[in-house]
């Protein structure tokens, strides 16, 4: 009896492994499959872009390509790739999530961000506000968010990609206001002034988070809280999401406010080196990402409310994107690595807002 049990389990195990092997990618010249692991708001953009790329690739090489998409919170998507999701390319909300794949799983080369133009960010966005219709509290800029009568909705920066951009936009705005010129940061002549400005910025950001009644874990949850539950006076979110919702805003009783100054948010893309080399899809994956920089790719990005990098396309869609002053994460926080160690790690500045 005991023996037969052992055989049964061995046979079961064998069947399972054969099944799993059969599912893996088959290689032949006439067709190829790519898996693009992305974050939530890019759904519509990539739906259309994939269609265009298929036609482009078929014309160029005669090969039929199938592109599968996976969407979710940027951080969770990054973790899924680390844990073995077989992505050929990742198109995530922030460079940090791509770097995490490189650091935790070694699937991507170290200097990945220099491999494609513009820091591997083919399109950009910024952070703006949604307010209640008629803007009853007259919320115009970041300064209004610290008013005690204003209730602010933004997700938890520890769990949400966009929430980190939101946080850094507040931080950068406060620094810029104090310093006037962001190039003073890192210049030893101004060290004292910068330290004082940072203390003020910390106070400013803390004051905004005191007005946050709910810390949702992801961007979609925050939107739900604000739009469906009717909680809060202002929602901080991606410009592209806000503009995309533009035509339904009236129905929902909402209004767009884009502040005068904000952060240049750079969603980044990369090939997952180890995966494409194993599957033999490097060439097509590379072409796919480069296609994002082509005129078609840039047009589609602009159409889906991402700010294009191409000057030509930018001029064409000028009216769509408010002209505002944009600072970068490198200027205000010294890049993602620094931003995480100083602001978001356990015990960092964000955690300090909630201690005691």
């Amino acid at each position, binding site marked *: *009896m*005991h023996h*037969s*049990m*052992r055989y049964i*389990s061995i046979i079961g195990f064998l069947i399972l492994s054969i099944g799993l092997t059969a599912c893996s990618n088959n290689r032949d010249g006439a067709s190829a499959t790519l898996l693009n692991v992305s974050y939530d708001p890019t759904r519509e953009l990539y739906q259309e872009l994939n269609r265009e790329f298929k036609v482009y690739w078929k014309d160029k090489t005669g090969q039929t390509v199938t592109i599968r998409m996976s969407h979710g919170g940027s*951080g*969770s998507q990054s*973790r899924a790739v*680390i844990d073995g999701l077989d992505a050929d390319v990742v198109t995530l909300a922030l460079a940090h999530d791509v770097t*995490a794949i490189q*650091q*935790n799983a070694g699937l991507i080369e170290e200097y990945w961000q220099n491999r494609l133009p513009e820091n591997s960010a083919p399109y950009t966005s910024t952070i703006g506000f949604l307010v209640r219709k008629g803007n009853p509290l007259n919320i115009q800029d970041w300064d209004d968010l610290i008013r005690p009568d204003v209730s602010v909705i933004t997700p*938890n920066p*520890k*769990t949400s990609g966009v929430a980190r951009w939101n946080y850094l936009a507040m931080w950068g705005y406060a620094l810029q206001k104090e310093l006037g010129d962001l190039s003073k940061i890192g210049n030893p002549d101004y060290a004292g002034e910068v330290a004082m400005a940072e203390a003020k910025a910390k106070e400013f950001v803390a004051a905004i988070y005191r007005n946050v*009644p*709910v*810390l*949702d*874990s992801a961007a979609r*949850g925050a939107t*739900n809280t604000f739009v*469906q*539950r*009717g*909680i809060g006076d202002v929602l901080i979110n991606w410009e592209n999401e806000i503009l995309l919702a533009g035509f339904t805003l009236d129905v929902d009783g909402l209004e767009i406010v884009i502040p005068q100054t904000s952060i240049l948010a750079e969603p980044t893309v990369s090939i997952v080196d180890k995966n494409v080399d194993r599957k033999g899809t490097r060439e097509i994956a590379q072409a796919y990402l480069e296609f994002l920089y082509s005129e078609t790719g840039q047009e589609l990005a602009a159409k889906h409310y991402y700010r294009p990098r191409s000057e030509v396309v930018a001029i064409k869609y000028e009216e769509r994107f408010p002209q505002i002053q944009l600072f970068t994460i490198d200027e205000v926080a010294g890049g993602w690595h620094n931003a*995480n160690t100083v602001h*978001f*790690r*356990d015990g960092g500045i964000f*955690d300090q807002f*909630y*201690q005691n």
Partner: protein
Amino acid sequence: MNSLLTVGKNILPAKRSSVIPGFGLTMGFTLFYMSMLVLIPLGGLVLFTTSMGWEAFWQSITDPRVLSSLRLSFGASFIAAILNAFFGLIVAWVLVRYTFPFKKVIDALVDLPFALPTAVSGIALVTIYSQNGIVGRYVELLGFQIAFTWIGIVIALTLIGLPFVVRTVQPALEDLEKELEEVAASLGATRWQTFKRVIFPAIQPSLLTGFAMALARAIGEYGSVIFIAGNMPYKTEIAPLLIVIKLEQFDYTGATAIAVVMLIAAFLILLFINLIQWWNRRYSDEN
């Protein structure tokens, strides 16, 4: 083959063999099944924490934020399980003892929290209990809030634990012989005495089992709670959320440390409840 021979030798049913055949196969399957689903994954969890060293482990679980989230998780789960034990008993009582219209419908409703995706329960609850919801609106007039406070967490945990107590107590109540109560009454017991001395001791073991299951379920719940909790650090941040937060920061060891603490605490609580059960049985057998 060995076991077949033993059966042949012992004509009288003795220590080793059972009248029911298939012990080897079913036991082997049980071990395999439990290993694949429970023992190996959880063992891996414990093993993973040994890689971080005792000091780092201790530091990460004694962090005030972790401690307050554990307190909240276990505290709220305990309150929810007590509420479930009390009100679940009443629901089970009504469903077993009385006949009324739509009884079958209400009976089926009890299982709904099992079937619903927890996120749906969470969103449904927050819709009702938030400050603009149909209940939350009036509660706010009384000067307090349900959604985004610990009360909201308790409500969510009560909802998802409800079926356990009802479904464990129901059969015990059904098995209860009516005659016993009649005897008690004829011997001059008051209604309260009958309940306390006759009915309650009979259903108490299943009530305790239901309580333990509701408690265990509540400790691990994530999906429904995060919608209604507000998730403010030190205030309404449950331990499972803190695990997710640590994972989002790629702090695998920190996340595992909390998981192991929860695992051990939950195991001890369940073991303790089982010991009470065992002690109860022995005590009542001796009587």
